[in-house]
């Protein structure tokens, strides 16, 4: 528990959170670190407004944006795969944006996130700089038991642990499985945890996540940090599945526009003497099938099972001077704004 109190900013007449620094905080490096955090452009990161100093000008605390409501520790687990992915997505996205800016959060856990009044997930409590000379305990692993990746328990030759963004990915995995089950799996509570833990498996959840999603989430809990996916990959896979059945492709062919979507999932396109193919929507992607003749997609030989990228031109027929026909395909979908 950190010491924090809801206060009113009397200038702007709005609530703020005034938080005392945690014990062992390296005050000399604190401001530099807070300044570096300001560069993160993410709607999921809580805003720091000001610092509180004592009479000697020494920083004692931080003034932050106040987020109403409870953190995610005791959130009731969502009952459907869709709602579960809607919960995971903004967490993954927020952490990915933190990583994009070269930061490691270092204390990702259910207690450090909340949904604000507009339903926007906010992540707070970065594991800020610690004074490494203060006492031996701070040289050891930092973080919260259960959320700490196994590599954090391995000291290097200098007695300190080294880590990468993969510790946040691991902590995300623990956060996600705990949110899905409502409690943290016992198998993850060991110090260090024994992996893989039988009760921390995204494949066996009652919400029945799509297998591709469950597999990727299980990789977040890999013992080997290099085997864990990037946080941005996880966010992307989740957003793809959140849009299941909602994609649309506009196909421009000989001056006409055809729309493919969940209700009209396939179109056969052909020009005699040039080539033919079928474009089919599988709920997640648009794929090419029945490719015959000379068919190139964005200048690449087309094949059965080829995935249509966001936007492309398909050419039927041999290159100039033969007759060719261009087909444009533009894929779009509602924007995931979670």
């Amino acid at each position, binding site marked *: 528990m950190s010491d924090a109190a809801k206060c009113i900013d009397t200038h702007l007449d709005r609530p703020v959170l005034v938080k005392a620094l945690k014990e062992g905080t390296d005050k000399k490096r604190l401001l530099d670190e807070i300044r570096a955090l300001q560069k993160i452009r993410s709607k999921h990161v809580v805003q720091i407004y000001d610092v509180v100093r004592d009479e000697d000008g020494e920083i004692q605390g931080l003034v932050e944006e106040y987020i109403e409501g409870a953190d995610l520790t005791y959130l009731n687990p969502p009952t459907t795969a869709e709602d579960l992915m809607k919960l995971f997505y903004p967490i993954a996205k927020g952490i990915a944006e933190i990583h994009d800016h070269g930061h490691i959060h270092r204390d990702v856990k259910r207690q450090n996130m909340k949904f604000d009044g507009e339903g926007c997930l906010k992540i707070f409590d970065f594991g800020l700089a610690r004074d490494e000379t203060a006492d031996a305990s701070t040289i050891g692993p930092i973080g919260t038991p259960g959320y700490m990746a196994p590599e954090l328990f391995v000291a290097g030759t200098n007695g300190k642990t080294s880590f990468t963004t993969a510790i946040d990915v691991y902590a995300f995995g623990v956060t996600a499985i705990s949110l899905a089950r409502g409690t943290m799996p016992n198998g993850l509570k060991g110090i260090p945890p024994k992996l893989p833990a039988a009760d921390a498996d995204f494949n066996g959840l009652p919400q029945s996540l799509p297998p591709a999603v469950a597999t990727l989430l299980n990789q977040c809990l890999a013992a080997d940090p290099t085997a864990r996916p990037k946080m941005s990959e996880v966010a992307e896979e989740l957003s793809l599945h959140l849009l299941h059945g909602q994609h649309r492709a506009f196909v421009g062919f000989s001056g006409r526009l055809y729309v493919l979507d969940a209700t009209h999932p396939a179109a056969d396109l052909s020009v005699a003497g040039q080539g033919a193919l079928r474009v089919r929507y599988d709920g997640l992607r648009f794929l090419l099938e029945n490719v015959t003749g000379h068919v190139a997609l964005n200048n690449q030989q087309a094949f059965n099972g080829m995935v249509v990228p966001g*936007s492309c*031109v398909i050419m039927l027929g041999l290159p100039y001077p033969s007759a060719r026909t261009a087909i444009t395909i533009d894929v779009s979908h509602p924007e995931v704004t979670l």
Partner: protein
Amino acid sequence: MNGNLHKAGDIIGDRYLVLGFIGQGGMQEVYQAEDKLLGKIVALKAPKNLSAQKRFKRSAVVSAKVNHPNVAKTLDYVDVDENHAYLVEEYIPGKDLSRVLREDLPLLDPQIVARIFHHLARGLAASHHAGVIHRDLKPSNVMSVDGALVSDVKITDFGIAKMAEEEIAEAAEGGEESLTASQTAIGALPYMAPEIISSMKSADKPADIWSLGAMCFELLTGIKPFGAGLKAVSAIQAGKLPPFPTELSKSQFAPLAKDILSVVQKCLQLEQKARPTADELVKLCETFCYPANPREFGVVDSMRNAFFGFITAAAGKSVFFHRDSIFGANTAASGERVVFTRYPGEGSDRAFPVVKLRK
């Protein structure tokens, strides 16, 4: 251009170092400043006249209640002395949408307008949830991150409108002379809901919905739906939209343009109750299908033949485009500057859509 109140190097409230003047409207001067404490760039807004200061404080309090990614964040309020007060706001790198329209893009493609519409509706919904009415939604009060690339949009000046209200009310009641004398009123008029023209005091949430609809019509067509100047008054009161420009019926763009227009029409209902609420508007916008991929600037190399050509950008491979992907035109000349989204391709990447910048 310089501000009247400050010059680069001034320090405000022991914390904010003025870096330069950004611009001004009828009510305030806006400066770029560095927050020396947190080491980040902020926008500093100062009221132009002292009589406005008390209302300025109220406006700061109002805008601070809204917290949403599509609303410029209020960070601080500095009361230096009784003659100097400042609102400190998140600095948004880019341009406001009225500058984008004026300097870069005469009109925007449906893909980006759909995204702008959706995001502004969300920002507006957050403000309406907080009980805050904007009252002065117009392109100059929407900041576009990265200007013509429109990476993000954020509504600003929530509070300031309440101040402008009195000036506009006076102008609207005083007829042609005072209306044209007030820059603020002239800027706001094309987006003003009919009930506001009748009585400024009746500004309520549906008025914001109207303004957003009027604004998105302009973004999509390049045309102010009810014209500008005093003529707009009778056109607004009649509530009749001009015909839809034909270049928007180009097949690749038509379906989305149609979707947007139908939502715009719902916003521009004379009857306040007939307009969607902000929450309903968000639901309508959520159905828009558009690519949200980042855009970049480029220059057209050449059209290889009547059907396709290539674009060169600052970085990355050359980019192939088909003429059907050009917004509002059927061809592009070499040397023309464009904004586009890149998709990976073999040899060259592929662009969609391709939107021409002003010459």
